[in-house]
């Protein structure tokens, strides 16, 4: 049996793993929730391992009842530099909110 030097081995292996294993984005649906919410990201060799890692990392304290994983490279994001053009124009258009309707008194739970 080969003696293992845990510290040395683990830091080397960690570097190697993060270099070789792709990053995955993890989405968790809680018991009460209807939607999967982004929980964080982690490294895994494949989708199966990503789900199991997510189970161990993100659902240890009963946070969820369902897990989605997506390889991070498949997430496409809007460019923060374009935020002005993308989002500011909505700022002065309150008529897009459905707050101008008169609701009948009989209507509850709106």
């Amino acid at each position, binding site marked *: 049996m080969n003696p293992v030097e845990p510290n040395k*081995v*683990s830091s080397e292996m*960690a570097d190697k793993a993060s270099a070789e294993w792709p990053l995955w984005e993890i989405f968790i649906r809680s018991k009460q929730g209807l939607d999967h919410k982004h929980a964080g990201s*982690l*490294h895994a*060799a494949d989708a199966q391992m990503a789900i199991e*890692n997510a189970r161990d990392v993100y659902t240890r304290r009963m946070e969820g009842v369902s897990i989605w994983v997506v390889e991070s490279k498949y997430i496409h994001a809007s460019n923060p530099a374009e935020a002005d053009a993308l989002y500011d124009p909505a700022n002065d258009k309150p008529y897009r909110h459905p707050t101008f309707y008169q609701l009948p008194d009989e209507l509850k739970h709106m």
Partner: protein
Amino acid sequence: MKTTTLIDYTLHLADNALIIGHRNSEWCGHGPVLEQDIAISNIALDLIGQARNFYQYAAQLTGNGATEDSLAYLRDAIDYKNCLLAELPNGDWGQTVLRQFFFSTYQYFLYQSLQKSTDQQLAAIAEKALKEVTYHLRWSSEWVIRLGDGTDESKKRILQSIDELWSYTGEMFQPASYETLAVNDGFGVDLAPIKINWDEKIKSVLTEATLPIPTNVWMQSGGKEGKHTEHLGFILAEMQFLQRAYPGSEW
């Protein structure tokens, strides 16, 4: 007489879970990657939790002020009834994973039967633990397949681990004196059918992992009757030091 058998039988289940749980906990902070460090630590905690349930029951049966702590921290190696497999050193990641796979497969079929034990308490503990063990088995099987059917290096290492561990697998199915009595008393699990199921599962996973199944190997034994390898003494020295040096201390 029946109580002595039940205590021994329960302690055997507790010791198995505690010792392999303790071994796995040695990985905490040293896992190959953060996610797997957490995974093996979770498994360690599951097993130590199972051990606590069994120890609490054994303490209740023992009486005379015995507690889960006195059973875990104040018994010597000769009183420990765990299988030798549980106390073997971790080796590399592959060896730890393979040991867990062999052991979880055993626990999986054992607890399935123990759920139907005539002893209500053992049955309830087994039912609760089985959910955890189902995951341990899934996790460890996948790692064995990944390493066996992986790179040349991972295959070489897991083959070495099979050589290292295989001769310790037979003991799980050789009934100790109290296991035979427990079967006669109706609350213990007959190990013969467990062995058949174990063989089948091991064969299917090793085959998928493109690994050979060892045959006709002489098997080690003794742990269940208190005859341990030198490794258990070191585990207990570390685990029991505080309670022995500062009796009754808490934090």
